[in-house]
């Protein structure tokens, strides 16, 4: 089916919530740094994953497992063990970024379905077809860098299903090709499964305003009436040539509801909602809106328009209460 709704689940409650509100699939991670949301208190142990699978499969839905950080030589076994456990549990697909780990999965679990993670940074059909030919990748999640026309060109030139980010936190950088977090803190998504980790964040009330720092580097300073957001490095205000502004990206979220008819038409296999770190309440609201929107566009693509109520509800949940079409829309670049 085109336009499968793939929702985030940071824990079992979120998983069930996403399924109950209409997700076709959920994606989860194990409780360690084998996935790119290695946050304290988040993710699944084996028993919870098994329970989640049982719950999803009983309702005809799927569970995908993100193993999308880059294994290192001395901890290689942690990642291969995770692949083994995923296969034993009957996970519907594992989402991988590392070529060495893909080779392991193909050799040891040829029946296991593989997806290429956004952390694999594949932005062209040549790259995606590489992973398809060598490791049998069946779906690829595209980094949030291509325009819609470029996405369509990828779809036309690969047998691999394409999954796009539809809503949630917006990485302004190519996923898997951003080391800003480790430059500042020593830990990056690639190696540690975290970006701008909470342990490195400091908040301080000063005469000049509320300051957020990451490992000592001032990321932003908020005036009395400004709302302070989580200090993600690329969404800070910096000085460039005497000007202070959001030099990389405003605190904003991606929202692509408007693009659903185009995505349906070009044959996008799945829409991914970001946010395994968000609450079950968030998962419920976002899933409900996106389920309704996807059903509506499938019923009548030509007559589709996002309702004001959907947009209002999603904006309420957006970082900085604003949203963007991101790179899908050229002027953003």
């Amino acid at each position, binding site marked *: 089916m085109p336009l499968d709704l793939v929702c985030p689940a940071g824990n079992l409650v979120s998983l069930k919530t996403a399924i109950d509100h209409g997700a076709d699939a959920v994606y989860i991670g194990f409780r360690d740094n084998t996935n790119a949301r290695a946050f304290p208190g988040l993710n699944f142990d084996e028993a919870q994953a098994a329970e989640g699978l049982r719950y999803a499969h009983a309702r005809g839905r799927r569970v995908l497992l993100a193993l999308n950080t880059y294994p290192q030589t001395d901890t290689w076994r942690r990642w291969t063990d995770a692949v083994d456990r995923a296969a034993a549990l009957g996970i519907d697909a594992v989402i991988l970024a590392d070529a060495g780990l893909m080779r392991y999965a193909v050799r040891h679990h040829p029946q296991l379905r593989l997806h290429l993670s956004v952390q694999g940074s594949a932005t062209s059909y040549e790259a995606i077809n590489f992973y398809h030919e060598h490791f049998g990748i069946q779906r690829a999640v595209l980094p949030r860098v291509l325009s819609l026309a470029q996405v369509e060109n990828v779809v036309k030139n690969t047998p691999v299903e394409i999954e796009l980010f539809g809503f949630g936190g917006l990485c302004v950088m190519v996923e898997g090709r951003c080391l800003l977090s480790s430059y*500042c803190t020593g830990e990056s998504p690639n190696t540690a499964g975290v970006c701008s980790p909470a342990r490195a964040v400091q908040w301080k009330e000063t005469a000049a305003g509320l300051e957020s720092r990451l490992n000592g580097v001032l990321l932003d300073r908020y005036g009395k009436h400004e709302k302070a957001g989580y200090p993600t490095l690329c969404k800070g205000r910096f000085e460039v040539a005497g000007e202070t502004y959001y030099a990389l990206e405003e605190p904003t979220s991606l929202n692509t509801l408007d693009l659903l008819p185009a995505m349906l038409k070009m044959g996008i296999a799945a829409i991914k909602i970001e946010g395994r770190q968000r609450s079950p309440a968030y998962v419920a609201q976002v899933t409900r809106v996106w389920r309704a929107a996807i059903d509506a566009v499938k019923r009548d693509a030509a007559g589709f328009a996002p309702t004001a109520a959907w947009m209002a509800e999603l904006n309420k949940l957006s970082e900085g209460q604003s949203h963007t079409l991101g790179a899908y829309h050229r002027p953003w670049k």
Partner: protein
Amino acid sequence: MEMKLSLGPLLYYWPRDDVFAFYAAAATWPVARVYLGETVCSRRHLLRLPDWLELAEGLAAAGKEVVLSSQVLIESESDLKTLRKLAGNGRFLVEANEWGAVRLLARAGVPFVAGSTLNVYNAQTLDVLAGLGAVRWLPPVEVSRTMLAAVLEQAPAGIETEVFAYGKLPLAYSARCFTARHYNLAKDDCQFRCLDHADGLPLASREGRPFLTLNGIQTQSAGVYTLIALVPELATLGVSCLRLSPQSRHMERVVGAFHDALAGAPPADLARVMPGPPVDGYWRGGAGLDHGDGAC
């Protein structure tokens, strides 16, 4: 094995004459290898592939081993067209900087260099690349000595290791152009403002601490990574080539200092010729912006 020096690809956008002058000078410097080509932005057009090939012939005639580096972020069909020409050039080795290039080079059956943005963090992935024809590789620039030592212990036989050892660190790539954004210009109408910033556009925290460097769609560190004091350690690990990343001024001094260090001289103090403060935290396993004993 004797350690070599390489000149990395020019990451900035310089006027055409400046580029030709730079490489004319580089032909006389003690670097064994020169990486050429536009790796950052397809809009930078003052030199096209035929120009790079002309430079390549000149440098090869001067005794340099020339490698053509591919663009890191591939977005359009026209990017792929250039990539195919590069992969099929039939004369010079190519550095693959994303996996589409790996596919094309492996299919062509030619040896290649596995660039640092392929994200090789373990020996198994390195083995995949070696099987496809990689004869040399660069670890990600965030690699620590511990991580590299672990890979090299299990590395496939015969593959050569090159390490980014000097320059502002290329940290991130985006669809967005941050230089154009600074000037409130759309990327499609950037007016080539990168030309005004020969070593990138400095970005500081709101209290004036140098932090990053904007270079079009690429974000670099403000700090200049330098491993000149660690040459013996790199040699012991089995690293056979050190990459020096071009800067607009004093590059000859930098090359000379590394050349002396390879010959056993005590490390020269390069602070005066660096376009930013020195950093080496990644190599020590910490935050990239750290330097020396761990102090920021």
